[in-house]
């Protein structure tokens, strides 16, 4: 099929085809960048914490009763609270810790160890009770905390720590981490690694989401404490409703705040959820609109050229020839639009990446976008092209 006459015919309608080319280019740029953003946010959301997120509850209290200023009273009260929590049906395990998953931060410090040249940063959480069964983690190597890991006096630092596999890998590669010593950045308070947990991820403003040191310790003071607890699957609601009354019964001179980890996680990802929903909506509407635009402009082209089509048919062109003409015309326009669109895609991506901190555009997204939009353009041309093909040759003989 000769391409020359098609191009020559198109020259008469430069503006119209330029429009389609622009539209397709912009659509490709928007759709691929939108999909890229969706994939990026999804990737963050699907990052596993390693914990039993769905069945975790955090409840913290702040005391206003004067009796809490006595350390011994607070200590006894914590014990009584833990007993009361364990007695609630559906509670599997409970721990006292300031660690709160998915809140986008926590506490961290700078550390040093032999065998790793630089100082390094990692999250640090003291915990008491069954912290690992509570989170739903297993101590994969070495041992868990035992009662006498916690020193008796308040101001004596702990001597042992359990760290994440990712941190052990970063520090010592594949060598055995058990028995190694980690100190604070200025070389004080040495802690021996006694165990490794395989999974841990808690997003942090610095890139230390997978690096953690757990230490056995009080993790509370006279100003209050937070309990982290894990329930049987599906028991979260009933446990939440019983928590405050039960703890108020232990001591009423305090106020409580109860949150489920699922809620905290939802809040942490609210911007991401918004992006995913908004972008999905935009993509769907945009593809639809572009298809409509192509149908509209091609229809216009057909109705404007009814007479010429009739003449061609009268001169012996088959229906197939006419159909092919319009499809080829569309093919040229769509391809040109997509080529321009590839540049626009990277241009927009550069704009988003340089001003903002989104991710780079993977090439396969562009390929998929090109193929889909190309098909979209083809399908959108078929109805008007069919109409063109059905123009009767008799039209040519009629004077307008």
């Amino acid at each position, binding site marked *: 099929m000769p391409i020359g006459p098609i191009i020559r015919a198109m020259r008469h309608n430069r503006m119209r085809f330029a429009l*389609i080319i622009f539209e397709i280019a912009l659509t490709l740029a928007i759709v691929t960048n*939108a999909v890229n953003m969706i994939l990026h946010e999804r990737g963050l959301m699907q990052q596993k914490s390693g914990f039993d997120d769905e069945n975790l509850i955090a409840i913290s209290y702040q005391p*206003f009763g004067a009796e809490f200023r006595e350390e011994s009273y607070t200590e006894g009260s914590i014990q009584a609270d833990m007993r009361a929590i364990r007695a609630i049906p559906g509670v599997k395990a409970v721990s006292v810790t300031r660690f709160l998953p998915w809140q986008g931060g926590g506490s961290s410090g700078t550390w040093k160890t032999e065998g790793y040249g630089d*100082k390094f*940063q990692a999250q640090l959480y003291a915990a008491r009770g069954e912290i690992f069964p509570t989170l739903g983690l297993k101590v994969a190597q070495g041992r868990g905390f035992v009662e006498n890991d916690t020193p008796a006096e308040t101001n004596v630092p702990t001597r042992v720590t359990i760290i994440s596999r990712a941190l052990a890998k970063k520090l010592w590669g594949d060598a055995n981490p058990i028995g190694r010593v980690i100190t604070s*950045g200025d070389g004080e308070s040495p802690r021996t690694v006694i165990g490794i947990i395989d999974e841990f991820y808690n997003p942090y403003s610095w890139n230390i989401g997978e690096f953690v040191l757990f230490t056995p310790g009080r993790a509370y003071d006279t100003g209050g404490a937070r309990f982290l607890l894990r329930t049987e699957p599906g028991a979260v609601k009933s446990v939440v409703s019983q928590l405050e009354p039960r703890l108020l019964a232990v001591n009423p001179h305090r106020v409580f705040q109860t949150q489920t980890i699922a809620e905290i996680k939802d809040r942490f990802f609210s911007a991401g959820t*918004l992006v995913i929903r908004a972008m999905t909506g*935009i993509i769907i*509407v945009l593809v639809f609109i572009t298809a409509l635009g192509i149908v509209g402009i091609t229809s216009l082209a057909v109705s404007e050229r009814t007479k010429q089509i009739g003449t061609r048919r009268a001169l012996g062109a088959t229906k197939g020839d006419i159909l092919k003409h319009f499809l080829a015309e569309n093919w040229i326009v769509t391809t040109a639009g997509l080529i321009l669109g590839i540049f626009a895609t990277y241009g927009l991506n550069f704009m988003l990446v340089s001003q903002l901190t*989104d991710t780079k555009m993977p090439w396969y997204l562009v390929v998929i976008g090109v193929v889909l939009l190309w098909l979209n353009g083809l399908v959108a041309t078929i109805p008007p092209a069919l109409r063109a093909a059905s123009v009767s040759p008799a039209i040519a003989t009629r004077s307008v």
Partner: protein
Amino acid sequence: MLLYNVKIALKSLRRNPVLTALLISAIALGICVSTTFIALRHVFEKDPLPGRSGQVFNVRLDNWDPQRAYNAEDPNSLPSMISYRDMRALMKSDIPTRQTGTFRASYFIHPDPKAGRPYAEDIRLVFTDFFTMFAVPFQYGGPWDKAADSKPEQVIVIDHATNEKLFGGTNSVGKTVRMEDRNYKVVGVIAPWNPPVRFYDLTQGLGPRVEPIYMPFNFTEPLEIYTNGNSDGWKGFDGDGHAAYINSESVWIQFWAELPTPEKQQAYREFVNNYVRDQKKLGRFQRPLHTEVTSLPDLMNELQIVPPAIRSLSIVSMLFLVVCSLNLVGLLLGKFLARVPEVSVRRALGASRWQVFWQHVVECELVGIAGGIIGMLLSIGMLSMIAKFAPNPEVVRLDPEMVLVSLFLSLGAGLLAGIYPSWRVCSVAPAMQLKVQ
């Protein structure tokens, strides 16, 4: 003439209601999406202190570990807050017209036992300059005086909601509130105040709201108050307790100075640098000299208070509007060209090219405005849905400024879509058309 054009345009739009509906809904869709996300970005990006924010400066000093930057991955990074001792020293300067150090803590409020159980509340410790510098609106009373700052006196400023809760919304100036084990006299009640960003403390991003209760900063030492906001440290403490904490290198105070003129800004930067140089002689600040005196708008930019995702959304939504109006070009072209015979008659009867052009542009703008209004109404709905994701939902809405922007966008979209078809239809040679007919 404009009215006449509007009349013709309305007539023409009525002639093909399906096509008109299609045109209007395409613009409405584009305006709805773009207005929603531009407004969302605007909510968090708009100037918190219109006209004055460029005169309010945040101070940061690099007092970090000589061997490691604050953010280990960025050697130029410095702590986002300053230490208590550095704040004390900076407060001695008389260059700023107003200045305040500030941090957040948590206190127990003991209402009248008949009124309710004690509750924990976020309080903010500030110097009295805080209220004027950050344009805090008062309903009753006002800030405490300078004498109350230095002594410090047991005075507080409470917000509207706390006044409702404790005093039933009456003028409570002069009454007392029991916090922990002391009574504080209310000197001011803040009018309802809900800035979308807690701009005087940007260390926790978009989440937190402004605090309900404010008390004199100088209680920090005597009452041994610890922050419940962010606190970063790199060095151990010398000794125990609160005294060691406030003498440490830990940073937990946001420090602000109002510097109305470039001369003052210059002089103040000089002062801050000289302070750090002096401290270097005493063995502190062992990293290279690095201080930042940053204006409020620059700081909001630097800390990326608006999530990048929301910025991206606003850019993408604008492009979406462009595609929507490009789509209309095809439809309008078809519509207008079908009218060429009619236009030719008008031209032959003496209408000028411009008159025909304007008539069609007016028609496109009518579509733009109609679509714009529908789109704006839709975007109000969208924003209220999005508000559910925001930490303080009631600020996520369309303000008058954004309504204007949205109208402007609809006019622009109408023009973008209509200018080429209008030009095509007015440049037709009437003689040719008339001959054929």
